[in-house]
């Protein structure tokens, strides 16, 4: 209590009298609450995270205790199913979260092996080219996967261990296309899809855009705010490749597309939108609104929505309904103005910049000279005056 002693015991300060009791009661209450919370956290914390869990995995055994009635090969640790050369792989320590599998449709209990974090470093397969296929499925990282209620065999086939050619970046879109036919047909003809079929692994396939980690198990619903295809994240998703100088050099894309987009009002509106923006707040053009998504074309393709003033006008008009031909003529896009491209803007902007710099510099010079020649001597004189008066 910090009340001054002079007020103690005066009848006017009646709340002080009972405040000691109330503080005691409050402290007791708080302590009780703290104890309750602590005990609840200690007792129920782990249990409540996995309701209904009764069987724990046997420690040191490859197969967890939960079986759905399908006999799976139970293997001692370190031993892989037949036909697989297992390569030990050092990876980051994974926290054991064996029961996360219950979030997924898993009729054949694949995740009892492939979803066991304890086996994450073991379930790895070497490709002929020396790279590794990670056979571990990170269920924790894929908790919001849009396909989590599809059984593994929908994509991996009825005999997933018997495949001759595992899914690769080149064959992936075909697999996705068995359901997503329209998107597959569009992608196949797109600037990304054509080189992929010719064996070039650089262009984006389905998962490169639809998963933040290019992981087929982690494909998220298109308009999930956390997805890489949500309007707020589209530019960053494209930037994975299109802001990579080496890759862009290789394909002769000279424009700094990401930086120039972020300088444009479209990019600023997306960037400055709050993190938890609703989709209505993000009604600003991202990459795909102008360039297309599954059917994306090279900008110099005559069919591209941004090729030529006519196509560009139609594209602009999808949002700016009453845009006219002059609106498009003044569009800078990803380019930078120079003495050849929009010279009026280049020279006009340059001269105004120079003018405003001279103005502001002149103003600051006047202020600086006034401070040093007038204000500073005046202040010292005043101070000297005051000191003389005091002293």
């Amino acid at each position: 209590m910090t009340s001054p002693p002079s007020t103690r015991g005066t009848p006017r300060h009646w709340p002080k009298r009972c405040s000691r009791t109330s503080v005691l009661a409050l402290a007791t209450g708080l302590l009780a609450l703290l104890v309750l919370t602590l005990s609840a956290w200690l007792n129920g914390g782990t249990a409540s995270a996995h309701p209904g869990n009764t069987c724990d995995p046997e420690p040191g055994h490859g197969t967890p205790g939960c079986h759905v009635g399908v006999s799976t090969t139970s293997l001692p640790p370190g031993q892989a199913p037949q036909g697989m050369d297992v390569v030990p792989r050092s990876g980051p320590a994974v926290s054991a979260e064996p029961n996360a599998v219950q979030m997924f449709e898993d009729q054949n209990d694949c995740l009892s092996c492939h979803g066991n974090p304890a086996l994450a470093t073991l379930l790895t397969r070497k490709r002929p080219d020396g790279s590794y296929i990670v056979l571990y499925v990170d269920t924790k990282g894929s908790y919001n996967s849009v396909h989590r209620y599809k059984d593994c065999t929908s994509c991996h086939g009825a005999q997933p261990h018997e495949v001759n050619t595992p899914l690769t970046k080149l064959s992936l879109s075909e697999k996705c296309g068995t359901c997503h036919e329209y998107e597959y047909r569009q992608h196949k003809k797109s600037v990304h899809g054509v080189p992929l079929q010719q064996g070039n692994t650089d262009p984006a396939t389905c998962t490169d855009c639809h998963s933040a980690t290019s992981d087929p198990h982690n494909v998220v619903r298109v308009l999930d705010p956390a997805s890489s295809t949500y309007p707020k994240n589209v530019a960053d998703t494209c930037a994975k490749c299109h802001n990579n100088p080496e890759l862009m050099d290789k394909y002769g894309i000279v424009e700094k597309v990401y930086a120039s987009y972020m300088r444009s009002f479209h990019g600023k509106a997306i960037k400055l939108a709050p993190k938890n923006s609703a989709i209505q707040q993000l009604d600003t053009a991202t990459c795909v609104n102008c360039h297309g998504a599954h059917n994306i074309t090279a900008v110099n393709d005559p069919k591209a929505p941004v090729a030529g003033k006519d196509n560009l006008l139609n594209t602009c008009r999808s949002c700016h309904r009453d845009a006219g031909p002059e609106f498009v003529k003044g569009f800078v896009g990803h380019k930078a103005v120079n003495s050849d491209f929009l010279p009026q803007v280049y020279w006009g902007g340059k001269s105004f910049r120079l003018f405003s710099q001279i103005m502001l510099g002149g103003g600051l010079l006047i202020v600086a000279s006034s401070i040093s020649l007038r204000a500073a001597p005046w202040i010292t004189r005043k101070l000297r005056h005051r000191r003389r008066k005091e002293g």
Partner: protein
Amino acid sequence: MAQRIVVEKPGTRVFVTRFDAQQRAQHILLIVSFFVLAITGLPLKYSDWGISAWWMGVWHGVDNVRAVHHYAAWLMIATCAYHVMYVLVSRPFSTAMLPRVSDFRDFVQDLKHTFRLSKEPPQYDRFSYRNKAAYWLVYPGAAVMIITGLILLYPTQATTRLPGWTLPLALMIHSDAAILATGWVICVHMYFAHFSRHSFPFDKSVLTGKVPLERYREEFPREYARIVATEKLPSLPVGGPAVAGPTESSPDEQASPEESLPGDEAAVDEGE
């Protein structure tokens, strides 16, 4: 303006009316709209600064910030229109703000005085050359900001009449002129309006419309002399608080206005 000298609480302080109610209202409206435009426009220019993202979050999104920017822009347009109408309509038509040859002379004298070539500070009339410069700079500044701003606000309509390149040019000029205006107001206007030996640290005359008589004699001696010549000064005790003003002054400075003619005071204060 009829009676310029006003006495607040008879026998205490004497003021000179410098701005009437409408002029004060115009300046306050200009301050409010300018400030709101700056705080809602600059985060867009510097969108990659962390503080901009935070600030947009405070306003719940860039759309709200843009809406407020547009409202403030209309307020500033209305204020400018109001001021122009006020100047044109008010009688007698005021010519006090028009630049004159004496302003150039005052400027040269001020330069000489600043560089210690002359002990005599310039003797200002109703508005100093600085006041006039500050006033007339607003016209081109507001015109540039309003025209480019309207082009950016109605880009599709603007390009039905204007060539397309005006859009990116308007964006560049709007953004550069915003920096110029903000920097000018913060550094130059604030310095010369408030960091003056007459009114430091804050000159509230544009809000109250009144300037103490004592200060008016120092700051605008030529107009002071004219006012004193046409209007009767209220009879006050010599050396009393009314004429001495709120600032601390040495006893020899506490002279009645009749004794110390315009300019004397300033010369004493500055010419040490």
